[in-house]
């Protein structure tokens, strides 16, 4: 179980958007019966068939790290959370379709996770404003998931979907809108399942098969390589 075998994907978002339910659905294909407060970070493992259906099919175990908390937490909580942001291979941003603020907070969440090397305490340096340049040079694959899809009233649906489309475009990411209490949304063969599969394939590809991979190896190296950003540090 060497660390070389890990594929680590972070799941971030505001409290109460449904990250724990989502992770449970992705890993066990079952609905989570009793969601409760996530303290710290809860990890789960998803069995993913890379390049399913082709001769190169291989099974990977991807870890989904579901980090709890809110984007406005005290700086001590943010510093404590920063320890989970090491060596991230993929990022899933979760927001609540019925709550606009949770979508807006995604910018701050992504900055917190991806910018951690630019300040030692893990606190966001920018004022949270969206900076397209930072996302242009970003190497970590992103996926935006909107939850509680069933709770949007019919007449508001178009408006909400347009807004989330813009959001996903800003992040240069795919987007999926679903309801975590209904496994039908991720049924095999549906477009959502295809997008999900493509995302995980991309993560695995970046991790194992590309030279421009974005590995930061391990915990102690973070101190050594300081503000080098997350590019071009790879162990082969």
């Amino acid at each position, binding site marked *: *179980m060497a660390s070389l075998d*890990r594929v680590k994907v972070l799941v971030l978002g*505001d*409290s*109460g*958007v449904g990250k724990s339910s989502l992770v449970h659905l992705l*890993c066990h294909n079952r609905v989570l019966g009793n969601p409760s*407060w996530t*303290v*710290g*970070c*809860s*990890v*789960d*493992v998803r*069995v993913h068939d890379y390049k399913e259906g082709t001769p190169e099919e291989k*099974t990977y*175990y991807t*870890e989904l*790290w579901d980090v709890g908390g*809110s*984007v*406005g937490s*005290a*700086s*001590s*909580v943010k*510093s*404590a959370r920063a*320890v*989970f942001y*090491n060596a991230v291979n993929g990022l899933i941003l979760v927001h*609540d379709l019925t*709550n*606009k*603020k949770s979508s807006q*907070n995604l910018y701050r969440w992504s900055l917190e996770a991806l910018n951690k090397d630019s300040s030692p305490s893990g606190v966001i340096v920018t004022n949270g404003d969206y900076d397209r340049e930072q996302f242009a040079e970003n190497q970590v694959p992103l996926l935006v998931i909107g939850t509680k899809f069933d709770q949007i009233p019919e007449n508001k649906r178009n408006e909400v979907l347009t807004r989330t489309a813009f959001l996903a475009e800003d992040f240069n990411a795919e987007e999926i809108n679903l309801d975590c209490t209904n496994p039908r949304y991720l049924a095999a063969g549906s477009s959502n399942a295809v997008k999900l599969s493509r995302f995980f394939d991309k993560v695995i590809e970046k991790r194992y098969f590309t030279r421009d991979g974005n590995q930061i190896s391990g*915990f102690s190296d973070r101190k050594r390589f300081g503000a080098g950003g997350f590019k071009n540090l790879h162990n082969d």
Partner: protein
Amino acid sequence: MSFLVDSIIMFTSQVLFFGFGWLFFMRQLFKDYEVRQYVVQVVFSVTFAFSCTMFELIIFEILGVLSTTSRYFHWKLNLYVILLVLIFVVPFYIGYFVVSNIRLLQRQKLLFACVVWFTFMYFFWKLGDPFPILSPKHGILSIEQLISRVGVIGVTLMALLSGFGAVNCPYTYMSYFLRNVTDSDILALERRLLQTMDMIVSKKKRIAMTRRMMYQRGEDHNKQTGFWGMIKSVTSTPPGTENNLSLIQQEVDALEELSRQLFLETVELQATKERIEYSKTFQGKYFNFLGYFFSIYCVWKIFMATINIVFDRVGKTDPVTRGIEITVNYLGIQFDVKFWSQHISFILVGIIIVTSIRGLLITLTKFFYAISSSKSSNVIVLVLAQIMGMYFVSSVLLMRMSMPLEYRTIVTEVLGELQFNFYHRWFDVIFLVSALSSILFLYLAHKQAPEKHMTM
């Protein structure tokens, strides 16, 4: 004519307070949530506005602004409105939103909300029985009945917060109590946390692998037929696998609990480290100095509360008059007592009002951030509005003691003949209990923390 002018002044100030409450709600309390039910925001701002108006009327009383009759009228009006809000409107909405959150009771929301409200009224009424707060000449439906009960709840809250605040304030300000936390402590703890996460991951991988193999064998098992199929089916799923899995699952649960504890400890250590850094700055040193003063003040207050209870005395004069008495009689300084007493009591009362409003709003905000979630935010804000209303009403009640005699009359007149002495005694008792238990609690928490790190 002057009554009309006075009313316009009062109304304008109320609108201002309402606006302030609205802004506070939007900017501070609900800054991470979306306001979907505007009724909550309105109720909160209304409660805030009418509570502040009461304080404003006290100030006007001292300064002699507005005519006496219009002041009295506005007092009465304000009191009725705020009692109406605190006893009818807010509890009803709390019940309504609690019921909305429970899925089973969605159909008859209004009915259940009314049921909740009646239960609240029953307990509220029963609250008055064990306390000697009413004199027998009050009827059953008089306003004194309601105020006395609201007063009891509010005074209890004030004393609890006051007791805890008096002890906690020096504890947080003074750097003497700060534990020594080094960077290597934090790094060691983080390393442990990551190791625990790694162990959880590897165990979950095993579970996933085993489940997958069982699933695949199960599939193959369905395809096997005939003689060999029967033989294979005997050995395909070893009976021990299920057992094994549940054992690993138990280990995972234990490790997850451990990871949560480690995370919380890391947060604590980071917070302590930040406080140590802060204490080295100029501001930090200033607060440290203040902390020493506050600890003396706190000890004095506890002492006074004990004396009051043991010797069964209630202060008859307010600090302003007593201060003036001392200066005039013992120090022999002569000055215009009437003029100065008015101004000093205005300043004193003003400081008390401002600090109590600010303190309460800060405490409420912290509390709100700590416990609210997207589902319960409406209910919690309304509960906070209720607490705020009761707190402010009781502050007015207790503030009577801090004012010179000539200003007390309006409060006595408006609130009716309550047993004010009882409230002060009750405040002292609860304050003492709260302060002593906070000391005990903080002592235990402080002692326990270094031991936790020794076991590392």
